[in-house]
């Protein structure tokens, strides 16, 4: 017995209300629940609502347990980014940054009120703002594969706060400057790469 479009919409709304906010994760859960409900309807000769209720009473906890697994601060996201950081082209970029900062005293180009530390902060705010607009206004659906990149940006932000604010009265060292410039450029490239991959595969996620 196949479910109607209304039945599917009902399950989708139920999952949405159960805080399964990411469309790409919900899509898979929805198919799982729908298939199980279809089988239950057939096996026990039940209508949709009774089969759905019966299935969720037993399985809701386990179904939603899967949802809790998805954190934007996942170890896998960090590991994938770290792998990207050691790509030969990225290493070349980092070396270029090092020699740039070694030969150019960048702090001289900034005023006392707007330092290079502020520049890093502004850069991150702009990227975060762009992500907010892209995720919520352009895509209109929330996708875990993309929002986990926002989590990565938050981690970089905290790292920057930790390292850059350690010596408030000093100029950041060449190593610190190189590291953060490198990480930020790498993040930007990584973000572009993941968005490109997402757009290439978008048909996979949208009905």
């Amino acid at each position, binding site marked *: 017995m196949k*479910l*109607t479009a209304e*039945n599917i919409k009902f399950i989708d709304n139920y999952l949405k209300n159960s805080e399964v906010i990411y469309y790409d994760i919900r899509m898979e859960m929805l198919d799982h629940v729908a298939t199980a409900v279809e089988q239950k309807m057939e096996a026990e000769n039940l209508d949709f609502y009774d089969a759905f209720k019966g299935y969720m009473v037993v*399985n809701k906890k386990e179904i939603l*347990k899967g949802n809790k697994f998805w954190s934007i601060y996942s170890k*896998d996201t960090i590991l994938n980014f770290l792998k990207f950081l050691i790509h030969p082209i990225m290493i070349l970029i980092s070396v270029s940054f090092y020699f740039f900062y070694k030969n150019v005293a960048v702090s001289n180009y900034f005023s006392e009120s707007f330092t290079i530390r502020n520049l890093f902060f502004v850069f991150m705010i702009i990227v975060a703002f762009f992500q907010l607009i892209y995720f919520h206004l352009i895509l209109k659906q929330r996708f875990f594969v993309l929002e986990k990149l926002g989590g990565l940006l938050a981690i970089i932000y905290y790292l920057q706060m930790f390292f850059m604010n350690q010596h408030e009265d000093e100029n950041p060292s060449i190593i610190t400057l190189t590291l953060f410039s490198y990480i930020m450029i790498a993040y930007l490239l990584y973000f572009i790469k993941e968005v490109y991959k997402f757009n290439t595969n978008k048909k*996979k996620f949208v009905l």
Partner: protein
Amino acid sequence: MKNSQLYKGSLNTIIMKLLEEQGRMYGYEITQKVKEITKGELNITEGALYPALHKLEADGLLDVEVEKVDNRLRKYYKLTEKGTTETVNRLAELEEFIKNMQTIVNPKLSY
């Protein structure tokens, strides 16, 4: 999953073995197939299955195909080339493990 601590470590291998045999499968199908093969003895829960599938996909061992089926999208998983090679390795490792466990648990049977 029944006796979760014992089976947990083999979940990825179970999934890969099934995909090697079946070609491509979707989540619910995997849970039902395992239940069917083990005559209901082993029940893979959704909370364990999907994180495992996504991890295998992120590691490049699985590839996905999404199709519209009965008013909804269905995500099928299949082994990549790397996944196929890895399945052979993991099955060999699992067989070795089972053999060793048998030697420890029941030495007489292992000969």
